[in-house]
């Protein structure tokens, strides 16, 4: 026998290798599995999931991305699926459940062709071709433009997005908030480029207690801080605000210095200098007659004393990001050295400075700003978990509003557009030559998963609804979809359920490309790199015998 009967070990004994059909089917299964987890989270009749992490923390959500982030998976292909939800969330902020379900379905429909020995590359080519056609159809024929300045239209779209979420019960309120927050932070720079950075300029603050209806978008900023000194005034109208990022206390130099004192008075002098320094700082500030001083660093008792005496309110240790938002909202410039303060650095656009007590905490409100470019979204609700879910919903709504402001085109929701694209592709498929035709039409079929899941989640008769929908679309009614509440067919134009085009496009692109990547894999090697212990001893060593047993023997080696 070979090598004197000894197995020839080529790879590290700890690695496990699987290849061929088995791997492809495994990947497909992993993809389907992840899609199944998310499936019930789609549509207006979706349910929340409660997730518990090992530390005992609880997350309640029906946001696809939030669910997938919490669950830990072993299979590498499943990890891909989880990643795409994240990508979708970062890029457009909505449609995270749809993208995972769609990618899972695209893998599932490929399975039968792999079993029929079709080369994965042919399937992939067909998929890419279908994607291009689908995107064309979306852009050219199925989408309609929208006027972003029309409040009612915008509200409708945002409403249909958060209709599926917990916040859906408070539709009008949430839509108003999302729209207002996005309008507030939208800026256009000199070159006409629109910039909407919701993450940076619109902060969502959650305060447990009160009712959800009390949530609102402030025309200014709220920070979770109280004034530093009890005697400072807690309400100032039309305040002059100075923002600092330096401490109002004596700070030693950074170089290592020592003082050799010879005279007795030297020591008192040293202490005096410190006091004088603080006094100077305060004098510089007071010269500009501010009403409110806010700093990112500390404020010493002495400085507080001077400020109180001059009737100035002072807040300390605010966050850098809060300070930046404050600067945008009230028109101040953040200053570091007090001696360089100028009149132009003072913020005067705020209308009201007020410290309120909510629950047992103090909150500072700087509101009634003229033309604020940053804002705080204040959320109230019964408990922390619910507030967290409301925040996630609002993030999605913000995402939708932002996407619309950037690309004002809509497609009908409720699975209508998916059905329309599917129908379009089925017809195109007839013109595709060769074997490719089958996977091409399979992709069209896969798109039906969205209306199907919608129908499923509201307990409708799936087959009846879907066939009826297909018939509708075949007769050219492209705006018909599934009413996720009732499980009946409905014209989405009438129901006013819309989705932004950007979200749908991204869903298709990501789903297809992920399916492509996973279908290309024919070999999985796991456990490479130094495996530190033999804990996973059950792994098969890649020996000659082991190969032999699994029938993976290289064909062209002569015994």
């Amino acid at each position, binding site marked *: 026998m070979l090598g004197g009967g000894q197995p020839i070990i*080529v790879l*590290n004994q700890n690695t496990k290798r699987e290849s061929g059909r088995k791997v492809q089917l495994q990947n497909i299964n992993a993809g389907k599995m992840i899609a199944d987890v998310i499936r019930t989270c789609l549509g207006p009749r979706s349910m929340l999931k409660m997730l518990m992490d090992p530390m005992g923390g609880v997350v309640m959500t029906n946001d696809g991305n939030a669910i997938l982030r919490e669950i830990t998976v072993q299979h*590498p292909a499943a990890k891909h699926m989880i990643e795409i939800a994240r990508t979708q969330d*970062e890029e457009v902020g909505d449609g995270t459940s749809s993208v995972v379900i769609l990618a899972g379905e695209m893998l599932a429909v490929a399975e039968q062709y792999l079993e029929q020995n079709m080369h994965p590359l042919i399937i992939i080519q067909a998929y890419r071709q279908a994607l291009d056609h689908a995107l064309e159809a979306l852009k050219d024929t199925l989408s309609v433009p929208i006027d972003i300045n029309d409040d009612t239209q915008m509200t409708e779209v945002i409403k249909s997005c958060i209709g599926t979420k917990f916040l859906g019960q408070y539709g009008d309120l949430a839509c108003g908030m999302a729209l207002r927050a996005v309008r507030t932070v939208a800026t256009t720079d000199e070159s006409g480029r629109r*910039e909407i950075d919701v993450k940076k300029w619109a902060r969502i603050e959650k305060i447990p207690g009160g009712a959800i209806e009390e949530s609102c978008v402030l025309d200014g900023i709220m920070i979770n801080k109280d004034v530093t000194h009890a005697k400072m005034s807690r309400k100032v109208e039309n305040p002059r605000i100075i923002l600092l990022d330096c401490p109002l206390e004596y700070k030693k130099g950074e170089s290592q210095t020592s*003082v*050799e004192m010879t005279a007795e008075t030297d020591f008192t002098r040293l202490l005096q200098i410190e006091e004088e320094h603080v006094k100077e700082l305060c004098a510089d500030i007071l010269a500009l007659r501010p009403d409110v001083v806010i700093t990112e660093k500390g404020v010493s008792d002495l400085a507080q004393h001077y400020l109180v005496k001059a009737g100035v309110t002072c807040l300390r240790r605010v966050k850098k990001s809060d300070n930046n938002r404050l600067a945008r909202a009230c028109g101040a410039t953040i200053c570091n050295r007090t001696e360089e303060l100028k009149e132009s650095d003072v913020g005067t656009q705020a209308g009201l400075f007020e410290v309120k007590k909510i629950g047992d905490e103090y909150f500072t409100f700087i509101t009634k700003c003229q033309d604020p470019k940053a804002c705080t979204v204040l959320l109230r609700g019964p408990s922390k978990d619910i507030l967290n879910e409301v925040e996630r919903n609002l993030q999605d709504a913000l995402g939708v509003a932002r996407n619309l402001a950037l690309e004002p085109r809509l497609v009908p929701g409720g699975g209508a557009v998916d059905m329309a694209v599917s129908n379009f592709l089925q017809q195109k498929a007839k013109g595709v030559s060769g074997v490719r035709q089958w996977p091409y039409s399979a992709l069209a079929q896969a798109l039906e998963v969205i209306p199907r899941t919608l129908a499923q989640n509201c307990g409708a008769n799936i087959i009846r609804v879907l066939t009826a929908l297909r018939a509708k679309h075949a007769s050219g009614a492209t705006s018909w979809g599934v009413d996720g509440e009732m499980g009946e067919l409905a014209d989405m134009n009438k129901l006013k359920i819309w989705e932004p085009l950007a979200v749908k496009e991204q869903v298709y692109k990501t789903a297809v*490309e992920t399916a492509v990547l996973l279908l290309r894999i024919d070999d*999985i090697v796991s456990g490479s790199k130094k495996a530190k212990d033999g804990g996973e001893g059950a792994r098969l060593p890649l020996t000659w015998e082991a190969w032999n047993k699994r029938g993976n023997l290289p064909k062209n080696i002569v015994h």
Partner: protein
Amino acid sequence: MTAESVLSIQGKRSSGTPVRTENVIAASSVANIVKSSLGPVGLDKMIVDDVGDVTVTNDGATILKLLEVEHPAARVLVELAQLQDEEVGDGTTSVVIIAAELLKVADELVKQKIHPTSIIAGYKLACKEACRYIQNNLTMNTDELGRDCIVAAAKTSMSSKVISIDSDFFANMVVDAAMAVRTSDGKGGYKYPIKAVNILKAHGRSATESAIINGYALNCTVASHAMTKKITNAKIACLDFSLNKEKMKLGIQVLVNDPAKLEAIRQREADITKERIEKILKAGANVILTTGGIDDLCLKYFVEAGAMAVRRCKKSDLKRIAKATGATFLTTLCNLEGEESFEPTYLGEAAEVTQERVCDDELILIKGTSARTASSLILRGPNDFYCDEMERSLHDALCVVKRVLESSSIVCGGGSVEAALSVYLESFATSLSSREQLAIGAFAQSLLLKDATDLVPKLRAYHHSSQIKTEHSQLKYYGLDLIEGQVRDNKKVGVFEPTLSKLKQLKFATEAAITILRIDDMIKLEQEPSKESGYQQALKSGQLG
């Protein structure tokens, strides 16, 4: 076979035929691993490490690097792939497969009692002859074929990769990027330092929305939100020091007698940096890039001057930017007189510097650099794994484009060169009288490893007639079309590879095969039994007690 007691050390020794066979089997199993990733219908591998990180790739060198091969002979092949990757950048899979095939046929010959040294001599001769034949007969000049053939070469390199479907798009992108970094080498030729092509990855959107940027993309953001996000006619200063509060080096102490002077020192600390910034701004700089930090207290000066300051840039990035914009990369402001100064000549120029939002990140783009053009590729894809694989594929393609442009000679791909060589070497072998004949024959045989049983003879027939009859010389460009499973003229279709890549593949594979063939004895030392550290041993033996 194993003679343990003879050796003074603990270990196993095996020699003769079993060793050789073992080596050959090890080599071919390595080749088998990568075999399915060769060619346009090749598929990818997914590699999971023990932490659970996933890599999806089609690149031979990357697969083998991550596989952790243990067998010594197999390791030679892994290193071979690495070498090809460094030298050429592409063809890593092919080189491993050729080397393994060479070994396999050599093993057959050894079994027929031909001494390995004659095989080695034959292989060397055959390799030399093959290289000569490629250079004389099979190469084409890119100048006569134009840009199309460079794009085609890039496309060929991508054809097996995940981006193959969009290869038209990416090939043009790669060629543009390579053209943009063209620099003269001072001898009338041009160099294409592809390292200067900056590749950034951002997930989101679709692969086809990847973009080439005529300029340099920097993965940083401006230091303060208050700064302007766009500057036209930028004057760029590249600094390699922090604009922080000046601080004495560790261990230096200042001793003062007068308490008032302490205050002065403190004041001075803040002022030194301020003066520096003023010097830089005075020279006209409006974009300041530094590898170090910028203190919050200094940001205001930049904001007020309407300048853009970026901190914590990567040093390598800054060096390239300095080159591209004509700026001087400064490590200090000191001049020869011991004073600090900043000359306007230190500044680089660019038409536009902007901060743009890509995905969830902000990037700084430097466009229209003055001294030299630069280019950056921003790759988009559904997730990080996809982007990583795209980067690897594009890197390979860039290498190919670079080789083609620098050597301006290409050969046909798709097995056409191999078939031609095989036919040529077989006829060459018959003209020799020595025993090397067999080895050369074997060499020729092993070049035809690409499967598809019915196609290969047809291909050979074409090449044979092309070499015999002059009127059929066009047939020498015929190769395989593996998607349709036909034989076709690869010159017409545009399947090209750089000559250099092919030559290096042959040379490296032959060398590796020879190295492994020469082995006839293997000694494997056993691991030292004691796993405890010296300290534990000492503790046990009571030395510390």
